[in-house]
């Protein structure tokens, strides 16, 4: 398992959007999916997950509907809205630019300075 990383402020929403963009999923599933796609590197605090989900829903980035879970219980499944897809694309591009810039900055050698 890779070493776990702390989420930077503001990045939880991006990670949740990514998890949901992979297919409709309920709240606990979001948690598992993030753990899986980050290969265990990102562990979301369970208490922080639901406020994030409700915040994204309030902003119209995701929407929800009730379905049946794997243990045959009623579960609320979340999916991305058109607005969410657009926002996710923008945020991801922005993050990539930042990450690239940070990598470049942090890997610079004395000769490049």
């Amino acid at each position, binding site marked *: 398992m890779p070493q776990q990383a702390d989420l930077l402020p503001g990045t939880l929403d991006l990670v949740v959007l990514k998890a949901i963009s992979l297919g409709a999923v*309920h*709240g*606990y599933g979001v948690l598992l999916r993030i753990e899986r796609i980050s290969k265990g590197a990102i562990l979301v605090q*369970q*208490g922080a997950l*639901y*406020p*994030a989900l*409700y*915040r994204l*829903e*309030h*902003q*119209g980035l995701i929407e929800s509907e009730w379905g049946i*879970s*794997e*243990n045959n*219980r*009623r*579960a*609320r499944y979340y999916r991305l*809205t*058109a*607005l969410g897809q*657009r*926002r996710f694309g923008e945020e991801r591009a922005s993050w990539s630019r930042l990450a690239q810039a940070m990598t470049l900055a942090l890997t610079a050698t004395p000769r490049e300075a």
Partner: protein
Amino acid sequence: MSMLPNWPLLAGLVARVRSLGRSVLHGDVVDAEMDEEFRLHVELRSDDLRRRGLTKEDADRRARLEFGHMDTHRADARVARGLTLFDEARFSWIDVKLGVRMLRKHPVLSLAAVFALAVGIPIGLAPGHAARALEAPLPGDTEHRVRAIRLWDPVTSSVTASTLADFERWSRELGSFSRIAAISTSTYNVATDDGRSAPVAGAEVSTSTFAIVRSTPKFGRAFIDADGDRGAPSVAVIGHDLWTARFGADPDVIGRAVRVGRRMFTVVGVMPEGFRFPASEQLWLPLPRVVAEGIAAQRSVRIVGRLADGVSPEQAQAELDATARLDRPELPAARARLLPEVVPFGLQFLGLPRGGLDALPEFRFVQALALALLVVACGNVAMLVYARTATRAREMAMRTALGASRSRIVTQVFVETIVLAMVAAASGVLAIDWLLGHVNLAAIAGESTLPYWLSLGVTKRTMLQAVVLAVLSATVAGVAPAIRITGRWVQQTLRGPTRMRFGGWTSALVVADIAVAVAVVGLALAMSKHANVLMASDRATGIAAAEVLAVEFRMPEADRFAASPSGDADRAANTQRALVAALEQEPGVRSVAIAEALPRMEHRMRPIDVEGVDLPPDTPPRWVRSVRVDVGYLAGLGQRVLTGRDFTSADVDSTRAVVIVNSAFAGRMLNGGDPIGRRVRFPTSAVSKEAGWHEIVGVVGHLGVNMMNPEHGEAVYLPAAAGEIPTMQVAIRAAGNPESLTSRIREIAAAVDPELIVGRSVVLSDVRQGDWYLTISIAGGLALLVVILVVLATTGLYAMLSLSVSERTREIGIRSALGGGRRTLVLTILRRSLLQIGVGALIGLPVAFRFVNELAEDGEGHTTTLGAGLLAMGVAAGIVIVVGLFACLVPARRVLAIEATQAMKGEG
């Protein structure tokens, strides 16, 4: 490119509103779903842990521990859903108690604010309330299916009487109405078997009328179709008031005889109390159900109908429009332009346009004034609440320091203002309700009673609107100042003593108050100018109106009471001659004059041609007032011709048609020259005798034709033979008090002809033309508005100045200690107020100028009283400035009373 600009922003906004709405409106469901989601999460986590080898108990415990406290998550979720504001702004009864306490703590300020809203809210609601009352369904017509069908003349913007011929045509052609009925109101001499005879307002109605208005008798029966057949027994239905007054509330009244005119009728029904259809009638006779022909078909009637099931008023109107578009050669040209309309009964009755009161520019003007008053009232309350809140600066600051959020404090101020606004709205509405119950509105309107269907009482809807207005007022007056006061200024207060300054918007309110007051004072003065013109015009008629009793006499309807038209005409002539002779012999009667309309009354208008005055093509014809008069009319009124001669008996019989015109006609219609010998004709007259040329033989004064504007009251007098005027207005000049003749005149009339109907009897000086009432009403209303606005402006100024002084106590103390003179101190305090008064007056003056200018304009755009208007505005500005200065006086006196040492101890 998307058609929607910045759609993500819009989509996000919509999503937030939807989410917030669901959370607020369905909070229980949202919370329950959230709990279910949390429980599922814990269960799934527990299942995972059990798959990793934990026991069920251990897995459950660990899952719960990992998840954390659910209440915390719920609170976080509410924050995420944007509900924090609502949570913090939650309503509390303590706020209401505080609101009541604030009312008691600042009684003068509270009284001023309550007064402002108690006046502003009812006045703001009154125009809409009146408009709705006039369009309300008739009592008993719960589904509002009764409508009037009428003819609207687009040229004169007035209702033209429908005829029996119209009624019969619409009865045949219209499928949108299940039934329609014709109504012809009149005053009947009703004699009961106790020998008493008195006039009673009644109506001949189609037998279907009672079914249309859904009213059934208290006793007996309503009319049946057979009652309208020719030769059917004469039956009558009487009203509750007539039943109690004339039949002693006899329960066996059915079958009793009643004499109406000379004919006997059998009472077959008594209508329930309060039923006075179509307005204030108490006797109903069946209208014959026969096809009217000839002159009988031209009898004026009102027409009502009940919409057929499933048919809307709009569909009925469409059908009526379709019939109107048909080519109708049988209609005379003057009637072809008339537009048939389906309207609520009240609009037909009062002759209002189809759009109701809202369609009248005058009404919109009144609405605008009422709204302006409400806005000014709200503004003033805002200022007063602001002043009141400002006195609690420290309390607010301390509460903020102790953790109260801004929204919590704003909510508290809002609730306090709501309490104030609700008290005001309740006081205002209750006061109006009391007034409506204790003031004789009919007398104000110049009528004996109001129509039975007109209910001006406060309705549930009006009360609801008052509550909504109170909430809106509280929002404007409470929230806005509270937001301002809890902003940056709270932090300043926390840091130390500070002075709260009134911002630009409060100054703007004072300026607006003054501006509106100046404008309204200007308007009121302009109206009083008109009232003066009216008084002058009254004197100029040269008729001692206070000495003249005006009595209406009507000949009985020809088709119902006479054997033949010629016999009827002879009888009418004889009756008129006998009446005049009997009246002239009566002690105390100086002279008698008969006409269709007397001075000060409304006169009929019609188009006229003047020989030698050619109008350009496509010019609408010129209209004048015309009135048929008895030959001795002028002498009877004590008038003389200015030039030419009076009518003689020969003029009635002569083939040479003659007229007398008044001085306004001679001055404006003849393009100069000697009027005597010139000729006029009435091109649209249905009476062939009047359609030809008439020679002008004399000129009289304006004779009260147009009391508002005598110079524009062009009138033509035509001589009428005895009996030619079916509804006579008889002027009886009395030697003493004319009212003392009233009962004697009824006796004389009954002796001359028992069928002769004696209508309204009134001293001529109490007769008002319609515009006169409008002028007086508007002037009275405006006078009230002026008082209210001036009081509002004064209280607003007072509040501002009072606060300004109290908050500058320390500064004043220092200035005083440093040797500042009293005059300088007062000027310092008053400088801003004087500036506001000045700016307000400057803004108000042009508005006042506009009012005055429009009112002073005559019909042709000439301003005749500009000088008077300017004077009125000057006076208006003067009054407001004096009142404003007076409002400054009390705070200024307080400034002078402050001792320097005392002021230095203060905090301000």
